[in-house]
């Protein structure tokens, strides 16, 4: 994936969210503090699988979801667009309050949806935001083309997203950035 520190950054954010420090987590996973910091700074390639498992456990992160970030593909064309595993319901329920709290604060202080989105994606990976905010019945697919990730979101009922048009079917999926804007706009509307 384009962001070779996607997992490392996700770990960092969850350390903060859990109100823990790097030192505490290093100790919890049995790593020397300096070594642990070095691993996170170097990025995803430095994170070995056993450490990943321990981190997921200590930070209460959906392991399957984390692993798929770790295994990021080099190249996925549109024709191949991979379906991402959604995080577990429990994980989503744990993550949602923090994200919506941040989103609501931004909505109150920003003029536009675009501004809110800009700040959110600066703080969090787009896939993480989509996965937390989208209802469970949505599918998220990813393409990685020349190091640029693009996400496509669609309700499961639109499932035949690969099918040809032929008889006038509706394609009901949105590019990830557009989907996030819609989610923000919807929340903004509901806050009125």
């Amino acid at each position: 994936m384009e962001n070779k520190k996607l997992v490392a950054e996700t770990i960092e954010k969850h350390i903060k969210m859990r109100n823990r420090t790097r030192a505490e987590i290093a100790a919890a996973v049995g790593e020397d503090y300096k070594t642990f910091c070095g691993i996170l700074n170097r990025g995803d390639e430095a994170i070995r699988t056993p450490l990943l498992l321990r981190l997921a456990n200590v930070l209460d992160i959906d392991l399957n979801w984390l692993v798929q970030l770790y295994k990021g593909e080099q190249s996925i064309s549109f024709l191949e667009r991979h379906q991402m595993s959604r995080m577990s319901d429990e994980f989503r329920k744990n993550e949602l309050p923090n994200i919506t709290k941040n989103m609501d604060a931004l909505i109150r202080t920003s003029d536009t949806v675009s501004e809110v989105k800009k700040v959110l994606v600066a703080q969090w990976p787009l896939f993480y935001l989509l996965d937390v905010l989208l209802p469970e019945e949505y599918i998220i697919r990813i393409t990685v083309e020349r190091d640029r990730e693009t996400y496509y979101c669609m309700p499961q009922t639109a499932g035949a997203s690969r099918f040809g048009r032929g008889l006038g079917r509706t394609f009901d999926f949105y590019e990830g950035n557009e989907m996030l804007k819609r989610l923000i706009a919807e929340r903004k509307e509901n806050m009125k």
Partner: protein
Amino acid sequence: MSFLFCNITKMKYYKGITEQDTPFGGGSYVTKNQDAHEQWNFLNDNGYCYGFVQNRGEKFAIERINPIAKRQSKLEGVTVVWCAKNGCGDTVVVGWYENATVYREYQVSRCTPAYGFERDFFVSAKAEDCYLLSEENRTFVIGRASQDGRGRGFGQENFWYAESAYANEELIPSMLEFLESHKKDRINETEEAFSPPENVDTPLTDEEKGYAEKLFNDHEDSAFLPYGYRLYHESHSADHAYNLGEALAALCQYTKAIHWYSVVLEIEGNTWDVNSKFPYLYQQCGDYEKSIESAKALLDYDEAQNESVRDEIYGIIADGYFYSHCVEDAIAWLDKIISESSDENYVEFTRNTKTAWKELL
């Protein structure tokens, strides 16, 4: 000259609903759903604009625009005048299409999983022949029959054939003067918006390069495009050509995107990641022969060994033949899907498609 007046919901740009541009005054459907099919009326879609107006009867009596259209399915050379309420209760001209083709029935736009979007239209015109006015220039009032008298404006329908003596002898001549004088004021995008900027040969600063990268990664394609051209001009690299292709495709400039992806191939040789874009791009452009040809070529790649990819390529080929009215060939490719795919849902969908297409034989 032939004219058709259409009353649509008020928007600024008619390039899709955004936070800054939402429909206003469009009737109960628009109010309830915050949606209006005419929201795309001035989007430059691969060099064309496609217009919609609500028609309860779903057919347009195009012979009333010009009698030569009797028994025809479309009429060319029409000036379509788009009108909307101006917030003060008047209906004003917001824009117009010249040399437009008006269809008797609604048409459905081409749409693929990768490009385009579903919408209905009944008018099409080259983007260069389309003129959208800014709000301050929307000053030419078109009457309403209920207020101004029969034959002096829109009736209950959202379109007016303007057949009356008043329309032909007074309104239209006056309006033509207005339109001619405001052509220079148009705000819709034409060819220029998607072409290299005047300063294309000005090298970028490091700051500009960083900004361009951010714009591209954030999918801010309109803003990125001028930088993208300058980057390519400087480097002639495949990656910069590729990024231009991506931005132009996202801006619905499919023919231009094909050109830039072809430049990538000239530089790098054949690659899956670029060649895999052509089938849907050509299909979106209506060049079904090239769509089929490029899709068939993909079957030689290792990536096509992936069953779901292969299924989709077969589907593209079948669609290409179907859109080309080669229904027998299309069905032959549906049969390949039915016999080779292990995706039960896809096979069922394909069987249903085959049944429907066979009825057309």
